[in-house]
Structures are given as C-alpha cells and as structure tokens.
C-alpha cells in the first residue's frame, strides 16, 4: 500500500482520538464514562432538560456551558408545542452520532467531506401509546435514515463511511439493541 499524504481536513482531530484509544486500552477504568441529563416539568407536556456535567477519564467533567432542551408535544396532541417531541430528540441524537462518526472515519481514511446531510424518519403507530392495541409497541416500528454526502471519494467509499459509522455509533447501538433501564423515584 502506498503512503498517502494526509490532506483531508474535516475538522476532526483523529490523532487525538487514536491517542485516546491507545491510552485507554492501557487504562480501561478511565474509559468508563457517565453521561447525564436533568429535566424539570414546566406544565402540560412541556419540560426542560439540561445537560451540564459528565464523568470520564477518571474525574468529573463539565461542558463549556449548560445546554438546555425544551421538550413538548405538537398542537394536534392538544399541547403547546414548546419544543420537539421526545421521540424526535431520539432522531436528533441518532443523526448527531452517525454524522460525527462519518466525519471521524472520513478523516481517518483521508477523505475530504464537502457536505453531509441526513434525513431521518421514525415510523410509529400511536395506537400503542394510547393503549388502543396491546399488540402495537409504543416506540418506533422502524427508523429510516438517508444520507446525502458530497466527498472526494467513490460511491463505495462513501457507503463504507456510513456503514463503519453505524458500526461504531453509540446511539445506533442504543436503538438497535436492548438496554436495561432502571427508574427509581423519591417523594420530594
């Protein structure tokens, strides 16, 4: 294989990622992260979530700022539509995760990206959440993701970027595989 000059710049510091991979292989404890969100109900179906801190590399970490997310339901649900619905936030998370992965993989493969556009759609039969039909699940019955990518690469190389990104995506894994969810409650 011929050595190719690294010329692509997608703004991803792949050397740092590869360095972290090497370091964390030797220190698996530091690789154990905790991701967090808090949420407060504001009234109706409207709540506001905040993301500020997380745990990783052996210590507490902070985002540069606290990010807030308003979550609500649309007017056809007799709600005020103060924000995206929670299920749309799931799509947002999936898109963000896959696109970040595409950029990182492209950088590692020295592929210059010019544009990466994703369209996502989750199908849902709301007979599930409304309790009309016990045989209908609450969640998505499937998710369609379409990527339109302009890059210095062949169609196969671009397809491989998207496939590799799914393979390494946390949100893709969270959605496609079961996760144990433990909800506790206390009286304030």
């Amino acid at each position, binding site marked *: 294989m011929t050595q190719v000059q690294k010329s692509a710049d997608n703004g991803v510091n792949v050397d740092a990622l590869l360095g972290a991979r090497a370091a964390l292989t030797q220190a698996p404890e530091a690789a154990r992260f905790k991701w967090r969100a808090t949420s407060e109900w504001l009234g109706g179906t409207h709540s506001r979530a905040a993301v500020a801190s997380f745990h990783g590399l052996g210590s507490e970490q902070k985002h540069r700022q606290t990010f807030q997310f308003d979550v609500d339901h649309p007017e056809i649900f007799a709600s005020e539509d103060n924000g995206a619905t929670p299920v749309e936030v799931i799509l947002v998370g999936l898109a963000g995760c896959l696109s970040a992965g595409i950029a990182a993989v492209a950088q590692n493969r020295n592929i210059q990206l010019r544009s990466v556009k994703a369209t996502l759609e989750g199908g849902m039969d709301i007979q599930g959440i409304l309790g009309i039909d016990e045989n209908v699940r609450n969640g998505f019955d499937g998710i369609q993701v379409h990527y339109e990518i302009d890059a210095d690469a062949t169609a196969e190389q671009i*397809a491989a970027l998207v*496939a590799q990104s799914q*393979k390494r995506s946390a949100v893709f894994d969270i*959605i*496609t*595989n079961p996760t144990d969810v433990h909800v506790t409650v206390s009286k304030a």
Partner: protein
Amino acid sequence: MTTRRASWRTAACVDALVVGGGHNGLAMSHALSQRSIDHVVIERGDVGQAWRSERWDSMRLLTPNWMSRLPEHAYDGDDPDGYMSAAEVAGFLSAYATKFAAPVLNHTSVLRVEPARGGYHVVTDRGDWHCRALVLAGGAFNTPVVPRVAAALPATVTQLTARDYRHPGQLGNGGVLVVGASATGLQLAQEIHASGRPVTLAVGEHVRMPRTFRGRDVQWWMQATGLLDQRIEEMDDPGRARRLPSPQLVGTPERVTLDLNALRQLGVTLVGRLVGVRDGKAQFSGSLRNVCALADLKVNRLLDAFDDWARSHGVAADGRDGRLAATLVDQPPRLGAAFGSDIRTVVWATGFRPDHSWLDLPALFDRHGNLLHDRGVVAPGMVVLGLPFLRRRKSSFIHGAEDDVRDLVAHLADHLDRTARTGVGLSLAAA
C-alpha cells in the same frame, strides 16, 4: 511412536516439550528433529485428536487439498481441488507422524505447567517432565465461546455448541436458532434446515467470500495475491485482524458458494445478532442490514483487489464472474422469536478460543485471559503456534504452520544454545 516414558517419581528431562499433536505440533516436531533437538510431543488422544472427536460429521476443510501441506508432507491424492473431511485430515496427520517417526506420547494429558529452574515443569496424567523449551501447539479451537446471554435462556431450551454438534438427528424436533454467521454457523444452519427443522440464523459481523472467483478457488487468489502471507506487523489493527471470524465458506465437490442469500432462499430466517432475552423471547439486534452492508462492501473490495492484481500480473482473466449479489434481508427483519414455540434448540456457533488453563503462569495472560505473545514468542524458550494471525494471515491454516515453525524453531534453538552454554536456564521465576 516414542518409547520414552516419564516417571512418577522424578521428572524426565527433555530439551523441548511440545503440547499438542495436531498439525502445528507435528510441524514443530519435524523442525526440531531436523535440528536434532531432543523433544517429545504430548498428545491427549491420538494424533489430530480434535479432528477425530470434536468436529461435526459432514465437516470439510475450507481450504482445497492442494493447499494441505506441511514441511515435507503434502496431499498426494487424485482430487487436488477437493476438500478433506475431518477423518481425512486426521489420516493426513497420522501419516505425517509416521513418516518422520515423530516422538509422540499418545493418550497423555497435560495437567499443569509451572516454571522450574532452567525451564518448565510439566505435570501430565502419566508422569512429569522437565523441559528447557516449551511449545504450545494445542491450536486455537479448544473451548467453545458462548456469549453471556446463554445464561438467560429458558431451561426448556436445549443448548449445544458447535463442538458437541454432530448431525441434525441429535436435535429435538422444532425450531432451531443457530447463533453465529461464520463458516460453521452457515454450514450448520443449512444442514439443520435440510433436516426439516425450521432454522433462524442470528447474524453479527461476518466475512463473505465466494468459493470460486473467475474459475479459481478463492484460496488460490488469497495465496497468489500475497494476502495469506501478510504479516501481523503490516496490519493497522492487529487485534482486529486476529479476531476476524472465519469467512463464510464450505468445501463441497460442486464448489458452491454458501452465503446468507443462499440460506434465505432455502427458507432460513435471517435475524440480527442475539442480544437479549426478555419475557421468554429472544431479542435480535436491529443492525442486520448494516452488518450485511459492511460484509458486502468488504468482499467487493477484496474482489477488486484480485482483479487489480490479475491485471498487473498479466494473469489471463477468466470471463466467469465470482461477484456476489448484495445480501438481501427481509423488510423489516424480525427482531424477536419466542423460545418454546419458535425455538426449541440453540446451537452456538460463536467461535472457539484456545485452552491454556493448565499454564500456571498468570503473568503470561492479559486481563481477559488471553495469552500474551510477540508473534508467537510467549517467553524466552516458550512459543505458541496456530493462533489466528499469530505471525501471518495463514498462521491458523494447516499450510501456515511451515513458515511460523521455521521462524519459531530458530528462537527455540537459540534459547537452548544460550542456556546450555551458560548452564543457567532462564526461568520465569527468576525473570
């Protein structure tokens, strides 16, 4: 066969001791004999025991007969393009052992190996040995790997591994879930399905390969293009290269390609990786399409590389194609199956790992229990053979033993020379 016996009272001394009388152990024994190095081969059963007792009845090698060769020993039958059965492999190995009078101690199991002054103390069920050099040649396919989710299966489901599977008649009636889509998983899925039991095949990451490409066996291409000789130090991600599942191949007289499309056409239900059990139901990953897309892209890159090589080496292109159709999956693939009604039996075709549990040297293993080694050198005077991509891509193949043994016997000979000269063995206890 050797007439030497270890004594129960005192350990018998030997310069080198080889654990395992399969193709790796015999190839090493041949190399040691050529250098006149005093050694024994300890074999728990008869030569090539795993081929006699731990393979399913219809199993055949994934490599053609012309590729089955060991130092000064090669297939000499009239079907070079065929594929050996397990019994034929055992016969091939027995003939080899006889040919150079390999000093094999049959029906002897190694119970423990511990460091001793100047080398290693080897405890067997038929006496103890002291050796200055040790060869781990038990192969890579000793212990079936069964994922943790197995423990969550209902007790009513019968489970067995690819090591214990012999033929479909062993299984009860009703649906069978085969877990794993390497060569083993696909072959068992096909055979069990043909017996009339509905089969569901759980598919994770896998490696596709056509049996033939442009009229030649895919292994011919793998060898001719130099891929099989690729060294572990050339790989970007050696860990991944070593963990790669075996390609989806089968050895049949018709040289058919066995892939997921062929199984789906037969009526096998393809599902994603088995990821959980909940309320008596198996849960399959929603990643089936992507693992298929990854494998499709990868096999096409491989075949492109073959074509590029053929062009640049002036190899006449045979018009026959070997391109594989994109893998088709049901739209949408099933995400669950009920144990009991849909699935009565689960067959784990989820790989094997070597068994070095008798090696009483904890420092030689990583935190996952994998043996640490540098291209086969475990410690001064201790080498391992036959692990996937040990030194080269072909390391776990029968014909891969020759080059690895040549490299590693040099290490052993050098170690034996040095320790003999100084009179002080390098023992791990002292290191």
